[in-house]
């Protein structure tokens, strides 16, 4: 699969959509009476969260394919998916904290089970790269990373249920999320932002895949032209390696 095609079109689409979404969020969407302007971070926070979680699941699916076929390209796809979701995840936690401040006056609250589940998932996936880095054998690294990605992917829903159950007995859920309860003027910016986030993720994913594939091909060509010794052995890295042929 060629990842480098349509990158320009995708980048432009992402930029346009995100700008439109943000503009609508600022100017078109209603200002919240209690929470004020900071509430608008919701338009970034929730779509980012959903896309990040989907990214983790997408990483898990590619990991399953990698384990089934042992084709290193799936490992690369899984790695990029997870590492992008982790970056988005950090964004989710930061924007979530801002939103918490706007809603409850504290920079962190334990009342919102989705945010709390997200923190746990983030902490788990944060071990992915260090784990990869500390296994030197590349094949083993890829295989173990895939096992981890599948386990963590299966863990996400389980964790969500458990945290929800824990909360239900102390605080009832305080606010509605995006599904179903959105007033009309909020829907457009929200869905547009969601589309923008998805495009952002896809674009970044393709960029990174293209970049890694190109580097691998370059190494392989150099090796073929100038012999094994012309190419310095790849140092220890957490990133997947691709076959040299």
């Amino acid at each position, binding site marked *: 699969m060629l990842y480098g095609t349509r990158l320009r079109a995708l980048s432009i689409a992402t930029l346009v959509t995100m700008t439109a979404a943000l503009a609508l969020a600022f100017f078109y969407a209603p200002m919240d009476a209690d929470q004020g302007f900071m509430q608008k971070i919701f338009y970034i926070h929730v779509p980012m969260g959903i896309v990040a979680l989907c990214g983790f699941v997408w990483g898990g699916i590619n990991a399953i394919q990698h384990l089934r076929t042992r084709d290193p390209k799936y490992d690369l796809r899984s790695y990029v998916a997870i590492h992008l979701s982790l970056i988005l995840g950090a964004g989710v936690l930061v924007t979530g904290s801002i939103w918490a401040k706007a809603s409850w006056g504290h920079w962190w609250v334990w009342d919102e089970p989705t945010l709390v589940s997200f923190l*746990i998932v983030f902490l788990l996936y944060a*071990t992915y790269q260090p784990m990869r880095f500390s296994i030197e054998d590349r094949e083993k690294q890829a*295989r173990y990373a895939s*096992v981890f990605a599948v386990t963590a992917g299966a863990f996400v829903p389980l964790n969500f249920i*458990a945290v929800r159950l824990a909360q239900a007995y102390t605080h009832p859920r305080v606010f509605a999320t995006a599904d179903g309860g959105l007033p009309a003027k909020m829907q457009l910016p929200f869905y547009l932002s969601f589309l923008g986030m998805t495009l952002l993720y896809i674009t970044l994913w393709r960029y990174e895949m293209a970049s890694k594939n190109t580097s691998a091909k370059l190494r392989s060509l150099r090796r073929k032209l100038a012999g094994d010794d012309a190419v310095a052995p790849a140092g220890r890295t957490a990133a997947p390696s691709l076959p040299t042929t």
Partner: protein
Amino acid sequence: MSARATEPASSESDEALPEPRYVPLRTAVRALLRKELALELRAPQAVPAMALFSVTTLVVFHFALQRGVVDGDLASGVLWVTLLFAAMLGISRLFVADHEEGGLDGFLLAPTDRTALLVAKAVGLFAFLVALEVVAVPAFALLLLGPSPSLAAYGQLAVLLVLADAGIALVGTLVGAIAVQTRTRDLIVPLMALPLLIPVVIAAARGTSPLVLQGGSQGLEVRWLFVLGLYDLVFGLLAYALFDFLIED
């Protein structure tokens, strides 16, 4: 060609392909378990360390919380944090002996199911956790627990412990197998296992709170048992599906 090459081979290769030899799962699990327990008894590492660590942790809690007695939610929390952190030690050590002494190769050469190793390690870890709790729970009751739970309450706690231990054993076997191949084994184990075990902490701690309440135990809520059971089932299936990939090349 030397004369030996044309000599008749052993009888088996004259016929059709030789019969595959196979040792049933149960036999292999028993053999592996015997070895695990024999090694731990002969050269105790994991269990004494975990037990000692749990008692030390309780002492630290006394000073950190600045209390002589705890009850209710606080007691439940202290107990489960202590057990969980002690379990991390056991998980770190789980595959080390095999890794260092080439033991995994010895098993991989045997004509049996790879799953036998998963079962044996998980059951072994479960046994070590029970041994840990035999020391840690009385120590906790002695050192920090205010109220004296009834026998029935202890019985219910035992059920919680069994279900929680099963979950910890399954997650621990997976994480232990991953960690033993890394160069930062002792770091990876708690970092990876603790988030994965949070659902266990949630259910176990919530379940234990009413049992250690001042003013008499209020009985265990069955829903927490269901949560633990679900967790054990999910991780059991995950471990069964994924473990082979961790030990084969």
